[in-house]
């Protein structure tokens, strides 16, 4: 599998789209550093390909969310902060605010295995954003969301990006989300799977 060179500016969105099974998640995992890849990945001009995972500061929403089953929703959301030291009252307030904005305040202490698919998706999104990442990698972030929650999630992300403009690479699972930005579209090139860059 190959891909065109691409760059994503601060606050910009890069949508990865391709048929099911093409390798969108593999591409995203290679950006995360979970799958070996040839090439370079620079964030703010700094080569990060050789960095250990925990030093990259990537905010990630996995396809299956990968929430920690032994923690409740709030503790999942605070994990990225907690691993870097103490969680301040301000951090808790920000977390609560995020839960409120995404309509999850009543589920803030719920064990994650009691959450619905859409709720889990939103908790994963809060977790990815709350610790202040330098890059967002979102694997089907809007999956399982109804129209109302999709709007609240978009608002939340836009709000975050306006305060902390970081690049966003995301995989869409349906067309017509209305998210502006470049696109990496999967297709065939000389018998090989290839992601081609399309500008808006």
């Amino acid at each position, binding site marked *: 599998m190959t891909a065109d060179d691409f760059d994503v500016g601060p606050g910009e969105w890069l949508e990865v789209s391709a048929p099911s099974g093409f390798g969108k998640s593999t591409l995203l995992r290679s950006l*995360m550093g*979970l799958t070996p890849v040839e090439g370079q990945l620079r964030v703010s001009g700094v080569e990060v390909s050789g960095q*250990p*995972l*925990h*030093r*990259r*500061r*990537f*905010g*990630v929403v*996995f396809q*299956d969310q*990968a*929430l*920690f*089953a*032994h923690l409740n929703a709030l503790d999942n959301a605070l*994990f*990225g902060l907690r*691993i*870097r030291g103490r969680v301040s009252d301000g951090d808790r307030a920000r977390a609560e605010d995020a839960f409120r904005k995404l309509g999850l305040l009543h589920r803030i202490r719920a064990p994650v295995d009691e959450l619905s698919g859409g709720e889990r998706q939103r908790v994963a999104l809060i*977790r990815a954003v709350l*610790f202040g990442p330098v890059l967002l990698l979102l694997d089907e972030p809007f999956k399982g969301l109804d129209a109302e929650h999709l709007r609240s999630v978009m608002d939340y992300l836009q709000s975050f990006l306006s305060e902390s403009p970081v690049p966003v690479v995301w995989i869409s699972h349906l067309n017509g989300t209305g998210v502006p930005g470049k696109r990496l579209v999967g297709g065939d090139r000389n018998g090989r799977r290839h992601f081609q860059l399309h500008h808006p």
Partner: protein
Amino acid sequence: MSSGFSPVSEGMSGVMDFRIRIFDPEVLSALRLTLIWSGVALLPAYAAAMALASMSRGRGLRPLRGLAVLPGMFYAWVVLVLLRHLAPDFRFSMIAVALAWILAGIPYLAVTFSEGIGDLDPRNREAMMSLGASRLRLWWHHDLLQTLPVQASALLQQLWHILTSFSIVMILGGGPPHETLEVAVYTSMRLDRVDPGLAAALAFWQALILISLRIMIRRFRAAPVTGFSPRHAGERTGRSLVVVFISIAALVLLLATRQDPQEWMRPLLTSVSLAVLSSTGALIIALAAYFSGWRGVAEIGAWVSPMILSWICWSISMRWSLGSLPMLVLIQSVLFSPWFARTIFPLLDRKRTGEIEAARLLGAPAASAWILVEWPRVRGPVLSVAGWVAALSVMEVSSVMWFSRGDFDTLSSWVQNLFLRFRIDEAGVGFAILALLAYALLWLTEKGGK
């Protein structure tokens, strides 16, 4: 350890003997007797267990669930007491050993069979009954045939236990030497007649049998390979375990008043410390093997003859001049690490959910990610198997026997000596203490695991 023994020179000659003596008449005789008596013990146990399971169809087996976790030593003790009163001439015979094996096998097999039958879809039975099948035909065409994989797996597992069992053989096998593989090695060690060549030849046959068995067991994936995982032990026994636990505690209290506490206090403490150190060591070895990429080493341990493993450790101890206790810890850690491997490797291998990766990407270093995310996931099973291994360590005779000389004493060897001296009542107290310890460890860890 043994005075005047040169491990290097005799070990080398032992290797030479190893090649030649695999077909030694003495070795083949021990092999033949082991296989014959194993089969003799297995068939009645199978028949009785199947009858019990079929009659009760999973109900009324509650007492057996408690008995299923009792160690072989318990059954040996029962047989010895019975034969002492009924037929004194039998007490050192292989018939006595076989009786103990049969008694030990029935609860385990019955519980396993009944669970297999209980798991069957009742609609199939109802369909057969509606089509006119009698109870006998129902049993033959449905229960028996549908549970064949479970039966085969459990039977092979039981045969495995018999072939690797030292406890019963050791307790009852004080008579004619070299009647079984284990006795042959044990006797030579016990009497300071160390013969590495003979031990290697015997171990070769044991390993060959065990490997063949394991290959066959792997074909019956419908049933758990271990057949008696610690998790199942807790699930199957449930509350009945507590009843047994309390009963044994009462027995100990009753009988202990007749004993000199100093006599068993030291072996008791030794066994407990040994159990704790061994289970910890086994866990460390298994985890180190997994994360270093040498996981095959731990898994191979489950395929290797316990004799060979003991022999290797014993050879190391002779070279390093390790003390008895460190050596016992090493041996038991090595012997039990496959238990850990078989329990936690599938957990660690399970379909990745990305939790570790998520933790890493959220900023957790590898060790922190493991402690904060992976450990909570595997903690229950690991604690459970740790308790099981500790319990096995307390009850284990095989490794202890290698070092059960006058200069070192464990509770197991103390009980063993009492049995051999026909101090059966006192041995009963010792056994009760051992069983109490084993159950306490199991019960507590199962509770913690949940």
